[in-house]
């Protein structure tokens, strides 16, 4: 029978199947960080349970860490959370990349860069952006703390079979339009709930042409339209990216793995429960104006009139969003002035993203009154960027070159917006207060972020 990529990965991981019960799936890799794991470890201790497979488990510190230094966590509650992870990893024998380690970084940057993320794997993490790893053709999804404990104890998870959804992105992205614009435009088109109950496969010529970094950006934001996971079929781009990385198979193992990986792409004739079409050639730089990732528009457009939406729920949400964002309907988005520009996160904190931003800002200056923060997704990305001299491009322009972490993506560590401040951010969520209480977020690509920093208002590189 013809099967999709996701169905093949699913089927090869079923440990137990019974009528009326969810399938019990084996988990190949479990990623941990400090925020969603402490209560799970406590649960294990209370029940007298061990970590079943510490050798399939890896931890890093990212959400609740400073990015201005590697040594001092001044907030005592945050310090306790970090120390708790260190203690738990030591007690249960789990590999940890702590602050200052050359592999430390945002969990969804750290895994792939070491070659831990491979096609056909099941990967989970107590973080909704685990969907990122689907870019390699595995089944990767975010879980809650109860499930983190469940995976620690059993290396499995009971899972109800999801529906299959294909996103066909035809054509080719125009010059200057990136993976981030693509996914923002898609979410704006389908809405924040459209993927619910589905695993998604991104397909088509525009997806095939994306680099691994671009694919990770697309898969990363699957959760922002409600999808459980977002897969992309592995191909030569995937294999070239993986070969030689620390945890990639070598020699004969590499050949065996390749044989398996090449069998994974969706069979011709496999049936998806639903399909979404998107023409990449029609896309332009895209930004959000509202307080969920589906409230977006082309940069060339204006703030929409809330009354123009078709349902009462959308109109209510848009009215509230425009008010929170302090925007007037009809204002061109290019007239919106920002206070802070943030380049980083598991969505856009990889080397290619930093290169894109550096290319735009090279020879320019950050506008007066604007703060620009560059936060590499991992210590390794930071080191690579420095080897290429990117940090000098940023600092010469007047931007801050910081250490790796989630930083201003989530308003938890010291990097936050002040009430009323407005940001252009390469992260993934523009929820009310997401980047700090009272902060206002516009989601953008790294290229738009860099151009915005120079102009002081939302802008594309072509505006410079």
């Amino acid at each position: 029978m013809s099967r999709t990529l996701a169905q093949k990965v699913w089927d090869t991981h079923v440990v137990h199947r019974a009528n009326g019960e969810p399938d019990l799936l084996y988990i190949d890799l479990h990623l941990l960080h400090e925020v969603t794991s402490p209560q799970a470890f406590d649960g294990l201790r209370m029940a007298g349970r061990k970590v079943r497979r510490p050798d399939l488990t890896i931890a890093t510190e990212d959400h609740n860490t400073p990015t201005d230094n590697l040594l001092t966590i001044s907030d005592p509650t945050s310090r306790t959370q970090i120390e708790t992870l260190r203690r738990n990893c030591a007690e249960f024998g789990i590999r940890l990349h702590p602050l200052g380690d050359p592999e430390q970084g945002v969990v969804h940057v750290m895994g792939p860069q070491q070659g831990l993320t491979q096609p056909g794997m099941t990967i989970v993490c107590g973080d909704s952006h685990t969907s990122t790893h689907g870019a390699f053709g595995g089944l990767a999804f975010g879980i809650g703390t109860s499930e983190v404990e469940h995976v620690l104890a059993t290396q499995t998870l009971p899972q109800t079979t999801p529906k299959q959804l294909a996103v066909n992105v035809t054509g080719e992205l125009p010059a200057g339009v990136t993976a981030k614009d693509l996914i923002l435009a898609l979410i704006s088109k389908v809405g924040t709930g459209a993927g619910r109950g589905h695993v998604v496969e991104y397909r088509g010529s525009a997806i095939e042409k994306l680099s691994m970094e671009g694919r990770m950006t697309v898969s990363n934001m699957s959760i922002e339209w409600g999808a459980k996971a977002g897969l992309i079929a592995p191909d030569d781009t995937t294999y070239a990216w993986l070969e030689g990385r620390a945890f990639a198979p070598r020699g004969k193992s590499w050949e065996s793995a390749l044989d398996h990986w090449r069998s994974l792409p969706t069979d011709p004739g496999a049936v998806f429960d639903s399909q979404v079409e998107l023409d990449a050639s029609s896309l332009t730089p895209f930004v959000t104006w509202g307080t969920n990732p589906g409230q977006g528009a082309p940069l060339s457009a204006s703030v929409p009139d809330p009354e123009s939406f078709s349902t009462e729920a959308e109109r209510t949400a848009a009215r509230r969003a425009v008010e929170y964002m302090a925007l007037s309907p009809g204002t061109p988005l290019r007239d919106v002035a920002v206070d802070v520009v943030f380049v980083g996160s598991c969505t856009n904190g990889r080397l290619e993203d930093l290169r894109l931003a550096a290319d735009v800002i090279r020879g320019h200056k950050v506008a007066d009154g604007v703060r620009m923060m560059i936060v590499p997704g991992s210590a390794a990305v930071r080191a690579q960027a420095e080897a290429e001299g990117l940090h000098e491009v940023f600092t010469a322009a007047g931007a801050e070159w910081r250490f790796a972490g989630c930083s201003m993506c989530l308003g938890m560590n010291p990097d936050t917006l002040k009430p009323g401040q407005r940001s252009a951010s390469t992260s993934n969520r523009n929820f009310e207060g997401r980047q700090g209480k009272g902060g206002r977020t516009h989601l953008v690509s790294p290229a738009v972020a860099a151009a915005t920093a120079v102009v002081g208002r939302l802008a594309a590189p072509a505006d410079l």
Partner: protein
Amino acid sequence: MPLRRSNVDTDQIIPAVYLKRVTRTGFEDGLFAAWREDPGFVLNRPAYAGASILVAGEEFGTGSSREHAVWALSDYGFRVVIAPRFGDIFRGNSLKQGLLTVELPQAAVETLWDTVEQSPTTTVEVDLAAREVRCADRSWAFSLDDFSRWRLMEGLDDIGLTLRHEDAITAFEAQRPSYGVVVS
């Protein structure tokens, strides 16, 4: 308690600054923290004090996987959230923690909002065994798979359930391909 908002993401349910604790209790102080600063916000209205059912708009619990969102609602005293649609991860987390999430059509949610806004003391009944919500002379059936309902009714420990299949897990591990990733 009526919460007339859609797209209530988990950052609204509990902002990230409240996720720093390593313990499992006391998250009620972070529940809707930003919105609670408004004295008119529904959580601050004495008429709804002690309510154990929250009725919200569509796409409740989207966004982050933080189970703290469920803990905050439970710690505050909610036993049930009713909405037209929930974020998947939030729904999974809620059912694991014994917070019942009930999906009803938008029209039913509107009726519940109107009813409890007019008369805050109206009793709303959620019957897990019958999978039915009742309010005044109205009732709505809701769907919940048999397995989840059974787990909730029995208060079962998921890990214990899975460990019934430990032999199958061990057998599965024995046939995993040799090229698979091993971290340490």
